[in-house]
């Protein structure tokens, strides 16, 4: 019954959306803004990855908001789980096999390094702070799986979160006082294209984001795994 009604509703909505899609032909070039970004991104931001230049350059404010969303979710998750009270511990995850835990010792720093690579090269290659952060978090996830007793250093994680977030905001505010006097303006020298130390504030921000996302996601996993009796 519910499913039938639901399908009818979805059909109606689908027809509406379908008609709208006719006006958005798939695969046709259409936006001036996209063209503008592609044309000018290298000059404006110094990044060769246009997506990065959009994410951390043109629409950096969105990204600030997005980082905040993740921050909010991590905090909220902590708050929701913390109110249960009781003593903390972890159970339900059996100790992993020797291979996994042993391999993890080697794997963990490598994954971390890989994550760092991803976010430091965000302005040059695909990837960036979010992807890198996720990779870092998955390194921690691996640790949790292999050795259940291990816990993230919570205060360290929250310190990283706060400080890297503050770095982001501070860079934004510095833009207000330096260079072109706009919030989040790229006031650092842009350097040569396609080199690691280029694109002004973009790599700095992406590093901050990477650390922040990594610590937040790791914290999320950690919090969720935590058993409260």
């Amino acid at each position: 019954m519910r499913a039938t009604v639901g399908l009818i509703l979805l059909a109606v909505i689908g027809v509406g959306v379908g008609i709208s899609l006719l006006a958005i032909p798939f695969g046709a070039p259409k936006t001036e803004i996209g063209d503008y970004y592609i044309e000018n991104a290298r000059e404006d931001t110094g990044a060769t990855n246009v997506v990065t230049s959009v994410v951390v350059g043109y629409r950096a404010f969105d990204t600030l908001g997005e980082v905040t969303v993740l921050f909010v979710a991590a905090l909220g998750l902590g708050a929701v789980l913390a109110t249960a009270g009781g003593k903390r511990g972890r159970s339900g995850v059996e100790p992993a096999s020797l291979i996994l835990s042993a391999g993890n010792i080697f794997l963990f720093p490598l994954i971390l390094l890989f994550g760092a690579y991803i976010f430091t090269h965000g302005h040059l290659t695909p990837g960036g702070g979010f992807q890198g952060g996720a990779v870092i978090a998955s390194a921690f996830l691996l640790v949790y799986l292999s050795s259940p007793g291990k816990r993230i250093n919570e205060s360290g994680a929250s310190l990283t979160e706060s400080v890297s977030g503050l770095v982001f905001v501070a860079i934004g505010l510095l833009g207000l006082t330096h260079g072109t006097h706009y919030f989040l303006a790229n006031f650092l020298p842009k350097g040569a294209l396609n080199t690691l130390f280029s694109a002004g504030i973009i790599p700095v921000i992406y590093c901050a984001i990477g650390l922040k996302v990594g610590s937040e996601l790791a914290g999320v996993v950690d919090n969720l795994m935590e058993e409260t009796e």
Partner: protein
Amino acid sequence: MSLGLLLIVAFGGSLLTYLLGKVSARTRDAFAVLISLALVVMVASLYGKAFRVPFYGGFLGMPLVLRIDGLSWLFAIAASVLGCLSVVFSLGYMKGKERTSFYYSMLLLVIAAMLGVVLSGDLLSLFIFWEIMSWSTFLLISYNGGPALAAGMKYFVMSFVGSLAMLAGVLTLHGSFGTLEFTGVAAGMSSASPGYVLAILVLFGVAFGTKNAIWPFHAWLPPAHSEAPSPFSAVLSGILIKMGVYGFLLLMFVIVGLRTFLSLGVGRIEFHTVLSIIGAITILLPTFIAIFQNDAKRLLAWSTVAQAGYIILGISFGTSLSVAGGMFHFLNHAVFKALLFMVVGAVEYRTNGVRDLDSLGGLIKRMPVTFIVAVIGVCGLIGVPLTNGFVSKWLIYKTLILERSPFLAFAALFGTWGTILYSYKFLHNIFLGQLPQRYEDMERAPFTMLLPMTILSVVVVLFGVLPGIPLAVIDTIGVSFGFESLHVTPWGIASDTGALNTVNMLVAALVGLVVVWCVFRSGARSVSVGQADSYAAGAAVPRDKYQYSVRFYAPLRRMMAPYLKDFVDSFYMRLAGWVRGLGDGLRRIYTGYVGDYVMYILVFLAVLIFVQIAWSPW
């Protein structure tokens, strides 16, 4: 004397009273009396003046203005005097009750708001003061708790409906004429279409009619009057509901204008006749409901509704005599009804809150002064010659007969007969008959209660004997409305149309008294016989068993009771029930299951899209 200062004293006094109450109860009481006295003096000093003062630059672009003229002075003086007397009466009545600071503060606030209402020079400030009056009244009515809560609620809802109708009216006028000052609106109204004027009259009529408790908007009044603290009942019945009268007078004769008002109607049905008939209905039904009340205050409350009917009948009939009668009756009713409520208050005070007519009786021996003032008040209420009620009712009867309205005249007279019945019941069941044993060692009413009652009873007689004093004021108001003058003399009215001379009555009454005295003197001396001797043949029977005031008018009641249900009230109650039922049903859509909520969201979206695709109305 500036009007702004007057209002500042009034409103500021109310606030200060509350704050002083936190310091010392005695200071507060003295201060409250002082403030109310000051208001009387200030209002009195404004006699005969007519001017306007803007006092607020622009409330959302609408300037607020105060003004005074004869009409507003009349109501202002009535409000301030009654208010003052009520405060004095409260000194005794409220002693030892809780939250007295709140009570005094609210009482003064109501008085201040009433003064604001009558001194307003534009409709917006009228509305603002009207609303302040409404909510402060609500708080005072609910003050007693228990059944007073329902009473307060009923009052608030009905009066809020009225105020909002008024708000709609006020803002419609603002939309049409761009001004809210009485003169400006009046100028605009003179050229407005009759339908428009009628609509405005109806909107305001709901507000004023509710406050004035004309049928079918009276349902709030009986519970509210009976459950409020008695000194406040006096204010409520005496002056507060008369704000509706003020509103009607203002609306009909100042804003709409006499000529337009009288010619207004749909086809052959004239608006003012309809209003008169409503007035007549308001006289008849409540009068007979009042007869069967066993609660002294409720009886008076229904009586108030009925008397309000006279006033409406008078002013809406629209001749110079009737309008003068209506206005005079307002003044008289204010005096004697306040007096009677105070009487009940005094009785309540001494009997610890008993006001059930079946269990009182014989208090004449314990409260003689109260009894005397009660007799005077009741005489005024009935309209015995040489009391004020007679004059005003006479003016109304006279004009009804002169203008050949037999039905209305009959209704008015019939109402008076009913008034006699319930007034007598009131007087008898409280003061005459057996004194129940539990009241054997009751004390007299305290001075602070006797003083206001005495003053009011003096006024009842004064206005009855010298009706020229108030009629002179009323006459000038009538003239300002465009009526012809009444030719008032101190003893009555000299013109052909409404000749009235109290000197003749005074002489007749004196002669009658002398004759009766002679007759009684010439007969044998009366012999006093113990009650038990004649009723119980000397057997010792507990006296309370002989309380023959119980179930007064029982046969009449059996006869008429089925026809005297308050259909309007039960309709309102059912309406309230429906609204609650509707709300209760509607909230079932919030089922608590989130899948349903998701469904709502998608249904809404789908409907939006479907309508657009199918009809594209947007």
